[in-house]
């Protein structure tokens, strides 16, 4: 092939097998995770134990769930800044339902069972996400701005609902038939925390959707080149609304898991989580230009960030240093992304 006019490719003769640098670049999140585990295991005897890994994974579950939704949005070439706020709002909304809904005209207080609380909360997340999606797809509001708006609105509504206070009693009352909320955060199935299992199920479903369904193909193509996808018959606008809705759903699930873990729901929960989540997706190798990224990579990204910050806590490094380290990891990851996709992601 002697085509030199093909400037879009811009990487002449790059085909010659997988060399070591390419391998390291491809699997960088994986190698980073291994390096983190080895380093902290050497620094602290408590790090490398099954129980610690499960505890840390339970922390990762929150970011992992948010990151699944964020991955879908980023694959579409968008961004969702509202996930942290939606997480907070969902927790507060669930707490609000657990306290009982007073219907004044009838003079009764309804105590919905836990399953109904979960369904309603997830529906709330979907609605907020759908608003984002409609704003982006049909009203042409840039994703950054639309979701920045809902970041504020969702947080504000959460504060209004609680007057800035925290719902502390989420255990329910056996007499009212609404117990069991803490199951999500505290129970274990075969020793594995339920939160981790929720993440695993979410990851498997997301992975199947991305690799094996028409929707997955629509998402990758509309993120890679929306115009070409549209002309090939892909319903790009529906896809766009769907990814933001799903991101809202994942944020609501994460909100339920988190408030269950804490057995309380505060309006400040999930503050700045959107940034950590974006970081996890990017560390996992997804391109912010859209069209590139995998579930495996994103999970690894979430674990890298989670295990790193928990490890720093365990060896007793100041939380200020954690912030510095996390920042450095993010920049390093984006830098490596640019090297990997250099010249190809040009639109």
């Amino acid at each position, binding site marked *: *092939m002697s085509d*030199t006019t*093909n400037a879009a490719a811009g990487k002449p*003769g790059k085909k010659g097998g997988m060399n070591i640098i390419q391998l390291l670049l491809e699997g960088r999140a994986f190698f980073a995770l291994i390096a983190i585990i080895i380093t902290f295991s050497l620094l602290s005897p408590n790090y490398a134990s099954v129980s610690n890994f499960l505890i840390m994974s339970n922390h990762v579950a929150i970011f992992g769930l948010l990151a699944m939704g964020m991955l879908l949005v980023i694959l579409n070439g968008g961004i969702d800044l509202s996930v942290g706020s939606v997480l907070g709002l969902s927790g507060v909304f669930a707490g609000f339902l657990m306290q009982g809904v007073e219907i004044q005209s009838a003079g009764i207080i309804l105590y919905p069972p836990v399953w109904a609380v979960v369904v309603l909360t997830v529906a709330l997340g979907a609605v907020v996400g759908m608003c984002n999606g409609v704003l982006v797809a049909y009203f042409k509001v840039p994703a950054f701005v639309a979701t920045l708006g809902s970041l504020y609105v969702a947080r504000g509504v959460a504060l209004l609902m609680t007057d800035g206070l925290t719902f502390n009693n989420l255990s329910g009352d056996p007499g009212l038939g609404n117990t069991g909320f803490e199951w999500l955060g505290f129970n274990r199935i075969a020793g594995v925390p339920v939160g981790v299992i929720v993440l695993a199920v979410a990851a498997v479903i997301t992975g199947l959707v991305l690799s*094996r369904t*028409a929707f997955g193909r629509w998402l990758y*193509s509309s993120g890679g080149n929306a115009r070409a996808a549209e002309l090939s*018959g892909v319903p790009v606008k529906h896809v766009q609304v769907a990814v933001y809705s799903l991101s809202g759903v994942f944020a609501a699930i994460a909100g339920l898991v988190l408030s269950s873990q804490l057995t309380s729901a505060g309006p400040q929960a999930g503050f700045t989580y959107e940034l950590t989540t974006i970081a996890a997706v990017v560390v996992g190798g997804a391109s912010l230009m859209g*069209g590139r990224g995998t579930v495996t990579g994103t999970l690894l990204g979430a674990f890298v960030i989670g295990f790193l910050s928990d490890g720093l806590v365990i060896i007793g490094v100041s939380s200020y240093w954690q912030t510095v380290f996390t920042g450095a990891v993010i920049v390093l990851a984006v830098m490596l992304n640019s090297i990997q996709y250099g010249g190809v992601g040009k639109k």
Partner: protein
Amino acid sequence: MRTPETDESPQAEPDTAEVVLAARNVSKSFGAVHALKGVNFDVHRGQVTTLFGENGAGKSTLMKILSGVQLPSDGELILDGAPVEIASTVAARDLGIAIIHQELSLAPNMTVRDNIFLGREIMGPTGVNYAEEERQARALMRELEEDIDPLTLIEDLRLGQQQIVEIARALSVNSRILIMDEPTSALSASEVEVLFKVIRDLKARGVSIVYISHHLEEALTITDHAVVLRDGVMTAYAPRAEIDLEWIVRNMVGENFDIGSPPSGHKLGETALELKGLTVPAATGTGNAVDGLDLSVKVGEVVCIYGLMGAGRTEMMECVAGRLPATGGEVLLHGQDVSHLSIAQRIAAGLVLVPEDRQRDGLVQTMTVGRNLSLASIGKFTRGLFTNRRDEKAIIEDSIREVTVKTDGPDAAIGSLSGGNQQKVVIGKMLVTHPSVVVLDEPSRGIDVGAKAEVFRILAEHAKNGMAVVYSTSEVDECLSIAHRIIVMRRGRIAAEFTHDTTKEAIMAASGESLVA
């Protein structure tokens, strides 16, 4: 025809202008790929030298070497008799070599003045000396005899005027050699004339021009010397007076090339596609891009739409495909009104568009060759919830075979294909949906003659099997290839209709274009 081996190549040439820049034995390799093999090339002072060649012949590489983007692997460049090394574009600028790329490098949100002095602003005691910049910009425009106010925003200028601004910027740094890559590809006929007048003025001032164009006829009207490249080797050199169109094509492709004739031996059937009074508003907001257009195409028929840039061809086709909304009229597919259907529904009904700009509208660069090919047929290999790998593979292999894509396999990156093969992927993607009507907007744009012939052969074959084919083109030659009928569009309407036995001159005259001989 002459094949020069040494730097005395233009010896017996009638005009004895001296050579300002010469490439001697220049080679360039990318890994195992040899883009240029020992090329000798002269740029004559105050004259236009045109580089002809198919895609991948090495034109772009040679240009990049001359303008300092890349260094040659071997050989040398001689400027005014002395060997030079052009290590960067800044070095090239300092030597007086400027390049105007096909995609203009102007900042659309800034004024003409700011663009001309971008990166080398004239500084005064209190910051940028805007008054002086404006004065110089005005002087440049006067020299070019162009009525462009230096304080206009670039985005408010027509494309042709933007090109003039690029030229002005090159002149403002005293460029002596101007490399122009496909400068007319997006210009209207009248803008091309303005550009050619400017080029003649530049020649008169002693500026040497290296010109690159796929539009052979047009290039012939302006050039003084022709250089033809094929597969990285310079195959022919001659002054303008000794050559004609046929000579160029022969040297470009190495043989007499036929881009097909209308498929025959089959009966044209019922009307497949019919447009009734189709009206599409112009993107600029005033007037109509397509203005009450009527057209009908029969089963098995090939129709060519010819017209200048801005004649409304693209708008008409995008409206037929469902990308642009019509403000009036109907689109009928086999007698059924499809005007209200979405793009996906029209594809399912058998009406597909192959868009003009394959990078922007045709390919998903982040996906593999295979996934690009199967993109329009996702529904066909989805069983229940999940996609079926075996069915998808069958579809992909089917289309790779059908349009003969040269690729390492379905998993190759789309960017690894040459322009012609990328175009075949875009066409194959739509053909594999088994359409009954295919509309192609400039299917031959930016691909070489060989690939072009193949594309037309594929289309002719499908027409024979009962598909209705409508394609547009800006090259008259291609009107007279496989089309049964040629429709000339002008300002959103049909200006004329011809059969295959017409002449190029008649077609061009109807389009409002004049043949500058």
